[in-house]
């Protein structure tokens, strides 16, 4: 069985506990305006021109982002970093894109990891059927679960999909006491509005078991990627928030009993 991924990051330190290997799945049903990995959206490998510089000269080469990988190959790569996982209490994180878009592939690889004692996280938008969430929850040790906007219309506007299924899935995970760390991308004017923050706080309060959230600050490092992959960049004029503003949000979420991290 094969899956499509577009990158593997070794020594990832912001995607769950310990030293992690993060596998980036290709393909995402969402189109978030602020997406940091626009190259992850299309589920198929894509061609692009890569430019290398050498002594001031440019060398262009057509190449592809994204490649097919077998379960066995991928698992071998994961196992290669096992010593780092063991020493640090780390493991593998499946991110994307949206890993749940390749649920069967994900399910199989999670099974192999579990069997081998490798800790796993699934970094998801939560946009999937409840059945899919339930299947994956059998095998993964932890969800990194995005929560962006609670208003359905706004969610649809800024991400392209409705939010209620995402919230339903989250509630199921909470009720069934699954290990979930929420992640809140702080996007000025979109997720970071007075109204949305208040509503997110209400959502947090409604959760019984989940009590941890990481704030992901917006940054505009991806502008280059938008150009390279010829994707419309709706955010290029947005400025990142200051550290003080981030701390303010941290305090707000702490006030409803959450453990809040900045930067994941």
């Amino acid at each position, binding site marked *: 069985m094969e899956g499509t991924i577009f990158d593997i990051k*070794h*020594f990832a*330190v912001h995607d769950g506990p310990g030293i992690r290997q993060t596998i980036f799945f290709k393909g995402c049903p969402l189109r978030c305006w602020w997406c940091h990995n626009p190259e992850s959206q299309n589920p198929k490998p894509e061609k692009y021109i890569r430019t290398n510089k*050498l002594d001031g000269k440019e060398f262009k080469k057509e190449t592809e982002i994204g490649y097919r990988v077998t379960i066995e190959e991928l698992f071998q790569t994961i196992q*290669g*970093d096992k010593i*780092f996982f063991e*020493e*640090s209490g780390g493991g593998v994180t499946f991110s994307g894109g949206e890993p749940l878009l390749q649920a069967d592939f994900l399910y199989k690889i999670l099974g192999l990891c579990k069997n081998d004692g490798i800790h796993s996280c699934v970094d998801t938008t939560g946009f999937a059927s409840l059945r899919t969430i339930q299947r994956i929850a059998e095998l993964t040790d932890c969800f990194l679960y995005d929560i962006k906007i609670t208003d359905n219309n706004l969610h649809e506007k800024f991400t392209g999909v409705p939010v209620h299924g995402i919230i339903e899935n989250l509630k199921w995970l909470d009720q069934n006491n699954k290990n979930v760390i929420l992640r809140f991308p702080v996007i000025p004017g979109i997720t970071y509005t007075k109204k949305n923050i208040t509503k997110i706080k209400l959502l947090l309060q409604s959760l019984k078991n989940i009590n941890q959230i990481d704030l992901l600050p917006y940054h505009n490092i991806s502008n280059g990627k938008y150009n390279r992959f010829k994707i419309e960049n709706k955010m290029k004029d947005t400025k990142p928030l200051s550290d003080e503003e981030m701390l303010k949000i941290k305090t707000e979420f702490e006030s409803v009993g959450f453990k809040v991290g900045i930067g994941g």
Partner: protein
Amino acid sequence: MNSRIKKLRNESLTAVNRLSAERAMLVTEFYKSDIANQVSIPVKRALTFKNILENKKICINENELIVGERGPAPKATPTYPEVSLHSLHDLEVLNNRPKVWFRVDDETKKTYKEEIIPFWKANSQRDKMFVLLPDDWKAAYEAGIFTEFQEQRAPGHTVAGKKIFQNGMLNLKKEIQESIEKYQNSDDPKAQDKIEELKAMNIAADAIILFAHRHAEELDKLATIENDSNRKAELLEMARICRKVPANAPETFHEMLQHYWFIHLGVITEVNPWDSFNPGRLDQHLYPLYKKEVENGTLTKESTTELLQAFWIKFNNHPAPPKMGVTALESNTYTDFSLINLGGVKEDGTDAVNELTYIILDVIEEMRILQPSSMVQLSKKNPDDFIQRAIKITKTGFGQPSIFNTDAIVKELINQGKDIVDARNGGASGCVETGAFGTESYILTGYFNLNKILEVTLHNGIDPKSGKQIGIKTGDPREFKSMEDLRQAYNKQLNYFADIKLNGNNIIEKLYAEELPVPFLSLIIEDCISNGVDYNAGGARYNTSYVQGVGLGSVTDNLTSIQYNVFEKENITMDELLKAMEANFEGYDQLRHDLIYETPKYGNDDDYADQYAVKVFEMFYDAINDKPTYRVGKFRINMLPTTSHVYFGSVMKATPDGRKAFEPLSEGISPFQGADKKGPTAVLKSAAKIDHLKTGGTLLNQKFSPTFFKDEKSIEKLGHLVRSYFRMDGHHIQFNVVSARTLRDAQKHPEKYTDLIVRVAGYSDYFNDLGEDLQNEIIRRTEHEEI
């Protein structure tokens, strides 16, 4: 830092490096005396040592707590004409060179011209060596196949062990007497030689006691004219200490530091051993006295810190004796490689980290000076606090302390046949070199250019730079049918040059054993006294001679490139590749691009490339390891470059990895600058594929931008990263933490960055003191990390 230390530190930092002819004159004067020609060589050397210590100027700096300078003043650096003689031209170069200079005044030049040069010309060890070394050695040396450490500096690389911290010279004199009696009543055919050596050791022991007493007298004098009553009391206490140590075993913290310092000065005055001398496991040696005195109330945390800081400054006052020519290229720095070891395990194998370990780490962080260098030994038995504290200091960006794997060091030493207790009392010194402290003479003999040998192989034994046939004929590489053909040819060349190097080493070892014994150093390293044999002649319990492999990353990339581009993908023929290299890739831009960007490289946990690191490592190991030395020890390998990867690159034309002619090679076992694209875990996994336990040390430099160390969590994860590497038997890792932007600015405005210290390779140095090549190389490494 209190005001006294601040002032002393500042004086040390601003003292001018100058050359002093004092020692050279005292040595020459003695060698000319009648008595010098009537005694045995060891006794002559001991009397020379005594003549220096009896007559050299005593220097006591204002307000200092630990006394003794090798020269007449801080950073006044003596010369060693009996080892290597500086010509007048050399003195000019030293005075005028833009980096790592030593001021030479007219008086010194005059003394050299009239006294030193006429007497020593053709008589230094260096002169004698070059007469004895065969032509094949000289050809390889001149081509840059290897360097030779003992050409300008005496065999050294030793570290004080437990014994010398716990015994005074009077105890050693007793042992000497017993040993003399033993040999007087024995039928050992060498008994007479041994008795002469022991007599020499006895003279050397007396000489150092006398030297300490001269300090005591001077301190008494200063006390009588001192108006400040506190300082007066200090001076009298220091005088008392100098009368007690090193004659007797130290019994207070202050006494032990002063005791060691006299011994340190003795070692670096007797000759100029490579890597000066080193107190080794300082937290272990000092801890019992620290504990006792803290309990008694005679020592506080503040006074402990002040004494240690005063001790630190003494090291910084002593730059490495000036190096010249190729030796300056391979290791051009004021650093003299004293490497303080902290942590690790005790001799019973338990966790050795103690309260004092942390105090010393604080001292390192606060002092922020070049010398002494420092490292932590990390065993699986040490707590995480310890490694995290060390990483937090690294984060401040001056490259200290580096981190070593105690468990690997112990295994390396045991693999070499050492007793487990001696192994646990050991550590690393210099850059990364493994040794049994206090019981081993482990001499570094020279860097070995693994890439130049490949270059010669690719030219059928000819050095393409000079056009001379320096290697053997192993066939035209255009006729090679496979990598196996190339591998065999390379292996033949490697063995050919290894044999030349080892043969040269034996000639040089004999010369030092017979003509330049070191009776003082022999007092300190165990079993020289009971064996009645000099340190330089194999008297120590263990005797190892190391050859240092350089450029593993580059040679791996070069072989991988040939396999990938010539034999597998057939992108290019061997002939075309050689032509492109000969043309320094002029007109071959696309090819060079592909060699750099489209070819597998070492450092990415990719066996396709990494297999060649293992193959070359094993070939090098087999060519050197376990061969007998003149001193009846063993040759062994380690993998470190100091700055020789720049020199070795400068003797080479363009290479199959896309590197242009004369550019630096990779350093230590690190990947070539920019070749590692998968982050630190992949680098560590590649580096761990060679068997570190077969070496006496490997050096891995890992670059991080400062952002990486921003919070506790990241530091914890770096700690785990180190532990993972060590679980794979990695020997050593060091972090270079400084941004490329800072470095580039420093290159433009050196004046703003006079205190900027960066990690080079196995040691730290002032950025301003590095050659431009090396500066550029470090900037490139750093930039790569920041992407």
